[in-house]
């Protein structure tokens, strides 16, 4: 009787536990679906219908050719080709169009949300995992790149997946190498900066050897060898293209302020200078958050150390390389640091006393949501590029006797995408997209002649400035001195359209003296060389 009762008790207990664990799993799944839903709402309402940006137009242009053509053209660029190939197949399957093309990035972004939960709960428990997933879903930074036709959300997704399998290697001390190796290999073909993830893992391994099972070093070497062998043909292709040396983006050297800005961007998105100043000036609170970590017996786990390294090494490494060698310090390149930062923040806030933890988590989520909304709605968002409005305005207002001048030259791609007007389009400095080689450098001495040639047979000139490469003011000053300014219109931060009255008599002959770029969507692969050496993506 007693035994029977005990058996019944055990069965009941087990049943209760199973049911309770099942209920928890259902609750978690429901929460994750909700988080993905939130991201989807942000996407639909705030981001997906925004104007195509310069970088996106480049992605579309690169992936719009055959598979081999796409590989070839990307080999001239500063990127690896996996994302472009996926975009290529996505377009073949689902057609093209800005929302459709952006959907690919959103899929990776949405998929990253449950993976963030997975790694967060694996490292710190369910609560921290849910919080990591939540801040991923409401992250202004990730929402931005989750809705951009670029590889950054894919990079984020593969990074967090790879980190999950990396941690499993030392926590479970058996197997897991296939998944780790596969994600490492895929990541290497998504972005060159994925190498920073592998570098961090190598440093973590060498500083925490005791954590890892036997043969770890051998297995790491095998994974590294596979990656090197797999990438060798790609590097050969890049070398053959002859553009490897020119592939560094044209960025300014970062200052220490940029380090703080990048943290601000990762957490609160791309905000106006005024708002960003307020955010970064609150830095003494970082000290408070650090001191609040002083909690009895809250030891730093290996995962926490790894996540700390996971954002500190890429950021400081890229900063050091930028200062010492060549500038590569750009928030989106450092997307690889975002999952680690979010997981570290999740741990930190979960480690606080309960009341403080709740308040801090609520405040952070509220600030991030506000960041998404402001970033999505505000016309002053610094990363907004409203080429659509500018092009539609030009389509409606530029007449056949006018000329539309685009500067910097490479910004012609997104204008090209939207512009359907009657006036001809040219660039300053003058550039023929069909000629192999970099975009000609600006020269004050050739500016008058180029301007004369461009404007000779036109009544009015529309100049659209965006992406100041250091010579915008020279061009503007020259036009101000020689022509009458009729109108000015601003479309987004850094994007301004000027209309000038041209006073010269028409001279058809001069049209032949400079290469004027007529709207075309049949560019050749030679153009990529020019883009790679002139733009920062």
């Amino acid at each position, binding site marked *: 009787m007693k035994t029977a009762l005990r058996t019944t008790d055990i069965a009941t207990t087990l049943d209760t536990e199973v049911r309770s664990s099942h209920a928890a799993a259902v609750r978690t799944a429901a929460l994750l679906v909700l988080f993905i839903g939130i991201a989807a709402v942000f996407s639909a309402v705030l981001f997906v219908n925004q104007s195509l940006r310069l970088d996106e137009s480049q992605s579309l242009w690169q992936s719009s050719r055959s598979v081999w053509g796409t590989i070839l053209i990307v080999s001239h660029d500063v990127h690896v080709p996996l994302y472009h190939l996926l975009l290529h197949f996505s377009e073949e399957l689902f057609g093209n169009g800005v929302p459709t093309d952006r959907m690919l990035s959103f899929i990776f972004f949405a998929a990253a949300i449950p993976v963030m939960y997975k790694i967060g709960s694996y490292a710190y428990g369910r609560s921290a995992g849910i919080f990591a997933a939540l801040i991923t879903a409401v992250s202004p930074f990730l929402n931005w790149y989750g809705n951009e036709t670029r590889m950054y959300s894919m990079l984020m997704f593969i990074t967090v997946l790879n980190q999950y399998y990396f941690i499993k290697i030392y926590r479970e001390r058996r197997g897991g190498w296939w998944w780790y190796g596969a994600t490492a290999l895929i990541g290497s073909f998504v972005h060159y900066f994925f190498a920073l993830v592998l570098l961090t893992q190598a440093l973590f391994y060498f500083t925490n050897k005791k954590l890892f099972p036997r043969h770890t070093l051998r297995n790491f070497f095998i994974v590294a060898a596979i990656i090197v062998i797999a990438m060798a043909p790609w590097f050969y292709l890049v070398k053959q293209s002859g553009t490897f040396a020119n592939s560094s983006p044209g960025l300014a050297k970062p200052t*220490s*302020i940029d*380090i*703080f800005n990048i943290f601000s961007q990762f957490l609160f998105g791309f905000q106006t200078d*005024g708002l960003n*100043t*307020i955010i*970064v*000036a*609150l*830095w*003494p*609170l*970082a*000290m*408070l958050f*650090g*001191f*609040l*970590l*002083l*909690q*009895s*017996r*809250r*030891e*730093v786990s290996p995962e926490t150390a790894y996540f700390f390294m996971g954002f500190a090494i890429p950021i400081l490494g890229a900063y050091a390389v930028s200062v010492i060698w060549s500038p590569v310090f750009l928030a989106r390149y450092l997307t690889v640091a975002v999952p680690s930062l979010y997981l570290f923040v999740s741990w930190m806030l979960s480690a606080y006393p309960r009341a403080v933890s709740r308040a801090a988590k609520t405040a952070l989520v509220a600030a991030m949501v506000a960041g998404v909304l402001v970033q999505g709605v505000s016309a002053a968002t610094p990363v907004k590029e409203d080429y659509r409005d500018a092009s539609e305005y030009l389509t409606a207002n530029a007449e056949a006797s006018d000329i539309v001048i685009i500067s910097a030259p490479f910004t012609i791609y997104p204008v090209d995408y939207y512009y359907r007007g009657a006036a001809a389009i040219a660039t300053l400095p003058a550039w023929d997209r069909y000629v192999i080689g970099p975009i000609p450098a600006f020269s004050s001495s050739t500016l008058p002649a180029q301007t004369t040639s461009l404007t000779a047979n036109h009544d009015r000139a529309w100049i659209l400035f965006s992406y100041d490469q250091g010579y915008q003011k020279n061009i503007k000053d020259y036009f101000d001195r020689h022509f009458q300014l009729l109108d000015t219109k601003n479309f987004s931060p850094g994007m301004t359209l000027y209309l000038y009255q041209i006073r010269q008599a028409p001279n058809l002959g001069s049209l032949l003296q400079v290469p004027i770029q007529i709207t075309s969507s049949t560019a050749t692969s030679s153009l990529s060389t020019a883009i790679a050496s002139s733009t920062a993506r």
Partner: protein
Amino acid sequence: MILDTQDNPEREPLVLPRNEIGHQAILLNIVMALAYFFVIAFLFPVDSRILFAILILGELFHLWQIFTYLHTLWRKERPHAFNPEFQPGVDVFITVAGEPEEVIEETVRAATGMQYPNFTVHILNDGLVAGKANWREPRQVAKKYGVDCITRTMPGGAKAGNINHALAETHEPFAAVFDVDHAPHYDFLTKMMGYFIDPKVGFTQSPQYYRNHWMSGITGGAWEQQELFFGAICRGKDTMNAAFMCGTNMVIRRSALLEAGGMHETSITEDFLTSLFIHARGWKSVYVPEVLAEGLAPEDFRSYYSQQSRWARGSLEMVFRYNPLFKKGLTFSQRIQYLASSSYYLSGAVVFVNALFPLIFFYTGLEPFRASTMALATIFLPYIFLVIYTLQKSTNFSYTFRALGLSMSAFPIQMKAFVQILSGKKAKFVVTSKRKLSGNFAHLAAPHILYVAAAMIGMSYAVWHQGFTASVVDNIAWALFNIAAFTPFIMAALPAARPSRAIEPATAIQPAEKQAIS
């Protein structure tokens, strides 16, 4: 309540861990501290000369504190001779000055239960000279447990006078001293006496463990402060023969004490000063990091405040009246360590002026220097995070924000003690209450409450006046940091919204603490 840890031979020992911070990290701390000081002292243009001078003085004091702390952490161990067979006679002194009978009884019961072949328990009864109505109770307890009770009839010297009086009445070569609320474990003497095999060892000291640390924010914060002191600091001092007596849970060699002139009755921290004199005469000290007695933390804010006042006053007296730098017979490390411990209580003035800087900016726009806020952050944040890491690692992750907040918030206590010493006001030995005092102690946190109010008004004024500039936002963040640091102190001073937990955890030593056992 006597814990099973107290008389249970099966219990796991609780040893306060040694610091695990490496020499590279210590050197990095030094480099970063110097770099930070260099940057703020020389690279930024000065705004207000007076504020700048005050800031630099404060930073110099911080440098002194960080360097002496790192000096404490440098060595990990110092070998001591130990012979468990060395079992000379010991007089066990339990100092009493009007405490409740049950508290006395608990300690006497624990003391008589010690497993050691040769000791006599004496209750040192100061109740009569202290004018306590219950001064006869210790006699009853002594009678009940068959121990000696020495009742003073001539006042003077407070606790030190009580011990000196008992020394004259007893004869064993060693004396163990316990405050009445610190009950020894059964193995206290067996683990403390073996060190005296070295004839140069003058005293041994073990930690003051607060078994009621789970009870409230005050008891918890007090224990967390003790963990830093009896962990990394005392273990570090021991490596330099600079560990000092802490008034209870200690054993003294009679000859060493008499050579030093007995317990010094001129100071309210008689243990600290007497240690200095014993060391100065070439005696050694041994710090035993294992918890061998369990006591009570002050349970109410008034008692905590009064305990902190006494420590601040007594320690600062050493700086100004017995400065260890000029005391003959001490080694260099002993001088540094004694000065570091006694000068700690000057930090209140530094906390105070640092807290004032944001307020001064809000109301006047003046700052010590003009710098890009991010330029300062670039050097400051890595430095401070390194300091936090060092603090955590060196205390085996036992130090808490609450303890830090209580330490920072003690600035009015420390400044008052400083002013009293400068003005020559005589100190009075106040025994920390062994019973919880009830009431509203908000007036003791008045400076902090005033600070919060002034900061809030100042923030609004600055924003209204200057807008959300980088400097305004930066200073708001500094003020918020100070407010957060003062919050545990203010909360402890205010009347509790709900009564403290009445149920003690199942074991005094929590599972997490067991991890700390080394």
